[in-house]
C-alpha cells in the first residue's frame, strides 16, 4: 500500500504574497519577508510546535526554497556547506524550540569555529512562558552563548526586522560567524505593520577593521624585501576574503613559498614552483621544514592553533620575523607572538603588500625547498592486494581535474583528502577543521550542491562519520541533490585506532565498527545506486560510474584497516619531530 501525502502548496492560504511597507501582517510573515529581502533562496529546517506559525506562512513565499532535513544537526551542516560554497552568503536554518534547537548546537559550533556565516532562527515558547520550564523550552541563548558570534531573543515584534538585518550583517561581515535569533511563538502570530529598515546597518559597538594599517603594510613589504628565506602560511581567512589572487601575486613577485593549514587547503595552486603543502601536526614534512628554516614567516587568516604549531615552543623558534595578518585582532598574539601584527582583511592587506614589494627571485631558497620536497615527499605504502585509501583519493582527484568540490569528513579520511589534494584552482576543499565534527561531510555536501548546482560534489567520509548523519540520505533523494559519496571503510574508527596504536600504549579500545550496515543495501533502501570494491584495479571504473550517474550515489571502498596518516608529529612532540611513512614493505 502506498500512502500519498498531499503537498500543501496547492491548498488555500498558500498563494504567493507580496508584502509592502505598512501592511499589517503576522510576525512570521514579517520574518519571511525580511529573509526574502535579505535575498535568502534556501532554508534548511525542521518544524515543531514553536515554529509552526512560520511554517504556516512559508508556502506563500516560493522564493524561499525550504529543504526539509531529517535531523536539525543536518540542517546546520547543510547551511554551513551552503555558506562555505557560496562564499559570503549566510546559510539559514529553522528549528523549533527545545530539542530542535538543541540538536543545532553541534552544527552551530562547527560553523562558528570555521568562521562560517549562519543565521539560525529557532522558535521559542510564548513570551509569557519563557522562564517557566514550559514544554519544550530551552535556554537557546544561554546554551549557545559561547559558540555564536551574536544572538538575539526577540522581545517585541517592532524590533524583528531590525534584528534580522543586523543578524545577516553581523554573520557575514568582519570575521564571519553564527547568529542565533530566538523567536517566541506568540510574536510569530502577532500582527504588526511591516517596516523594512532600508538604511545600511551601523552598530556603534561593531565595526570590524578591514583595511590594514598603511604603516604596518609598508613595514611588512620591507621585511619581505629584506628576507632571504620567506615562507607564507595561508588559512581559511584567505578563502573567506577571496584573497587567492592577491596571495599568488605576492608570492610570485617576492618569491615566497606558500603552505597552508587544513582549512587553508585550496588557497594556492598545488604543483606550482612555490607551493608547499599542508603544515603542522599532520602536514607535509617539507612544509614543516620550510616553516622551521625560514627567516620570515607570514601567517595569513589563520589562528595558529595547536594542530598547526604542535608544541608551541617548537613552532618556528628561530624565525627572526613573524608577520601575522588577520581580521580578528584577538587571534593575533593569542598563540604565537608576531613581530609585526596587521589587523585587516586578507585580500586588502595582501593586495597592498604585493604592490609595495620589490620583485625578486630567491633561487637558493627555492633550491633548498626543492631538496626538502625530494627528501620528505608526501607518500604512502602500497601493499599487494590491499586497497589503500590514497589509491582511491588520487584517482578521485584525477577525475575531479581541479573542478569538483570535495567535502571531507573527520578522521584519517580528512587528512588523506587534504594531503593528496592536487588542485590548481582554489576554494574547493571543505571540511570541519576547527571543531572536527564527525558527520559533517555528508549533510554539508548536500548544502554545497544546493549552493553550486553546476559543480560536481564529492563527499569523502569514513564509515564511522558517515553513519552519524546518514539519515540525510532521505534529504538527498527527496531534493535530488547529486552528491557522490565515497566511503573509505576500514571497519574501525581509523584515526582513533591509529592514536591508540601509537600513543595510548597500543591498546585498541572501542574502535571496532563491524556491524556497520551493508552500504549497498542501505543505498538500495533509498533507491540510489551504489558500488563496492576492495580492488585497486576497479577503483577508476567505480569512480567514473559515480561521476557519470546523474543523482546521488554511493561507493564503499574497503581499504587497508592498518593504513595510517603520515607524516605525523607524535603527540606531545614538536614540529621538527614529524614521523614519515616507512617505505620498505611492498616496494
Amino acid at each position, binding site marked *: 500500500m502506498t500512502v500519498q501525502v498531499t503537498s500543501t502548496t496547492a491548498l488555500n492560504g498558500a498563494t504567493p504574497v507580496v508584502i509592502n511597507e505598512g501592511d499589517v501582517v503576522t510576525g512570521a510573515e514579517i520574518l519571511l519577508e525580511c529573509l526574502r529581502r535579505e535575498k535568502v533562496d534556501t532554508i534548511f529546517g525542521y518544524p515543531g510546535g514553536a515554529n509552526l506559525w512560520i511554517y504556516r506562512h512559508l508556502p506563500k513565499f516560493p522564493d524561499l526554497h525550504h529543504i526539509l532535513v531529517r535531523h536539525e544537526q543536518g540542517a546546520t551542516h547543510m547551511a554551513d556547506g551552503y555558506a562555505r560554497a557560496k562564499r559570503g552568503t549566510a546559510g539559514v536554518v529553522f528549528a523549533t524550540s527545545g530539542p530542535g534547537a538543541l540538536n543545532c548546537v553541534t552544527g552551530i559550533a562547527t560553523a562558528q569555529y570555521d568562521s562560517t556565516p549562519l543565521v539560525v532562527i529557532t522558535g521559542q515558547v510564548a513570551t509569557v512562558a519563557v522562564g517557566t520550564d514550559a514544554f519544550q523550552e530551552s535556554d537557546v541563548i544561554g546554551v549557545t552563548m559561547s559558540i555564536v558570534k551574536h544572538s538575539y531573543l526577540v522581545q517585541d515584534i517592532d524590533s524583528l526586522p531590525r534584528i534580522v538585518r543586523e543578524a545577516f550583517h553581523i554573520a557575514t561581515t568582519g570575521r564571519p560567524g553564527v547568529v542565533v535569533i530566538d523567536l517566541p511563538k506568540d510574536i510569530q502570530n502577532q500582527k504588526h505593520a511591516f517596516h523594512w529598515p532600508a538604511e545600511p546597518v*551601523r552598530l556603534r*559597538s561593531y*565595526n570590524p577593521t578591514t583595511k590594514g594599517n598603511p604603516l604596518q603594510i609598508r613595514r611588512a613589504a620591507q621585511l619581505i624585501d629584506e628576507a632571504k628565506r620567506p615562507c607564507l602560511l595561508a588559512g581559511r581567512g584567505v578563502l573567506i576574503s577571496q584573497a587567492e589572487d592577491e596571495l599568488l601575486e605576492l608570492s610570485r613577485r617576492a618569491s615566497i613559498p606558500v603552505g597552508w593549514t587544513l582549512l587553508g587547503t585550496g588557497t594556492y595552486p598545488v604543483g606550482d614552483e612555490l607551493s608547499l603543502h599542508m603544515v603542522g601536526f599532520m602536514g607535509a614534512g617539507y612544509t614543516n621544514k620550510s616553516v622551521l628554516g625560514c627567516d620570515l614567516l607570514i601567517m595569513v587568516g589563520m589562528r595558529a592553533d595547536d594542530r598547526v604549531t604542535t608544541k608551541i615552543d617548537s613552532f618556528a623558534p628561530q624565525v627572526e620575523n613573524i608577520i601575522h595578518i588577520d581580521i580578528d585582532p584577538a587571534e593575533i598574539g593569542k598563540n604565537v607572538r608576531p613581530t609585526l601584527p596587521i589587523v585587516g582583511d586578507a585580500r586588502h592587506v595582501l593586495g597592498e603588500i604585493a604592490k609595495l614589494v620589490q620583485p625578486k627571485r630567491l633561487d637558493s631558497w627555492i633550491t633548498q625547498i626543492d631538496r626538502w620536497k625530494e627528501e620528505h615527499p608526501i607518500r604512502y605504502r602500497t601493499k599487494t592486494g590491499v586497497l589503500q585509501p590514497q589509491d582511491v583519493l588520487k584517482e578521485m582527484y584525477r577525475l575531479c581535474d581541479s573542478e569538483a568540490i570535495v567535502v571531507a569528513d573527520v578522521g584519517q579520511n580528512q587528512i588523506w583528502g587534504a594531503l593528496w589534494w592536487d588542485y590548481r584552482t582554489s576554494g574547493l576543499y571543505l571540511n570541519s577543521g576547527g571543531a572536527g565534527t564527525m558527520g559533517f561531510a555528508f549533510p554539508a555536501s548536500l548544502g554545497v550542491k544546493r549552493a553550486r548546482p553546476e559543480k560536481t560534489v564529492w563527499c569523502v567520509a569514513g564509515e564511522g562519520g558517515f553513519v552519524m548523519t546518514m539519515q540525510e540520505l532521505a534529504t538527498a533523494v527527496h531534493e535530488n541533490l547529486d552528491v557522490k559519496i565515497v566511503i573509505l571503510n576500514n571497519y574501525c574508527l581509523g584515526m582513533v585506532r591509529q592514536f591508540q596504536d601509537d600513543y595510548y600504549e597500543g591498546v585498541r579500545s572501542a574502535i571496532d565498527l563491524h556491524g556497520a550496515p551493508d552500504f549497498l543495501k542501505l543505498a538500495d533502501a533509498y533507491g540510489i545506486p551504489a558500488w563496492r570494491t576492495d580492488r585497486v584495479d576497479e577503483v577508476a571504473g567505480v569512480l567514473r560510474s559515480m561521476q557519470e550517474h546523474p543523482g546521488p550515489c554511493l561507493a564503499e571502498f574497503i581499504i587497508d584497516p592498518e593504513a595510517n596518516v603520515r607524516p605525523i608529529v607524535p603527540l606531545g612532540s614538536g614540529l621538527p619531530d614529524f614521523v614519515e611513512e616507512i617505505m620498505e614493505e611492498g616496494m
Partner: protein
Amino acid sequence: MSTRHRLLSLLVENHPGVLNKVSSMIRRRGMNITSLTVGETDDDSVSRMTIAIDVGRAQADQAVKQLYKLIEVVKISDITEDPIVDRELVLVKVAASRGDRSELLQIVEIFKAKIADVGTESMVLEMSGSEDQVETFLELVRPFGIREVARSGTVAMARGRDGLRLSSKHQGRGAGQQPDLEAADQKRRAAGVLVGD
C-alpha cells in the same frame, strides 16, 4: 593592588544578558573575576562595568580583545596602569559592646568611615576607599570581631581629562553612527596589536 590583578573598565549596551555574556567570556578564557561592578551611566543606553581579573598583562590583553568581540561591548580600557580614582564601599558589622567602642571609633575616624547602624551588641560601619584601604580597614577592625562583611567591588575612573566616554557619534543606536574607535585603537596599539586606518 596586587601585580596579578588587572582592572578593566567597560562601556556596554544596556541590554538584558550583557553582564552574562561579559562574565561568561572571561570564564571561558579561563580567567578568574575577583571583582565586578555594573551600573547605568548618565546615558541610560549604556552601562559601565569595572572588572578586576586575576591575571597577568598578556592575558588581560587577550581578555580585552575577546571582550571587544562581543557585539554589545562598546568600549574597553585596561586602566591598571593609568592614574585612576578607584573606590570600593564596604559595610562591616562588628561585635562591639559598650566597653570597647572608643578604640573602634578611633579607627572609624582615621578611615573617615561612618557608623551606619548602632545596636546593643554590634555596630555596622560603612567605609569607602581603594581596595587596599578597605583591606587595611578590615584588618584593623577584625580583632573586634567581624560578624558580617558586604563589599561592593571596585568602581574606577581615570583622573584628569582622560576617560571612558562615548563621543557624540556614539549617541543612540542603529542608523547613522560611526563608532569612535580612536581610544580603543590606542589601547590596542599599546597592547601590541595594530589596527587599520
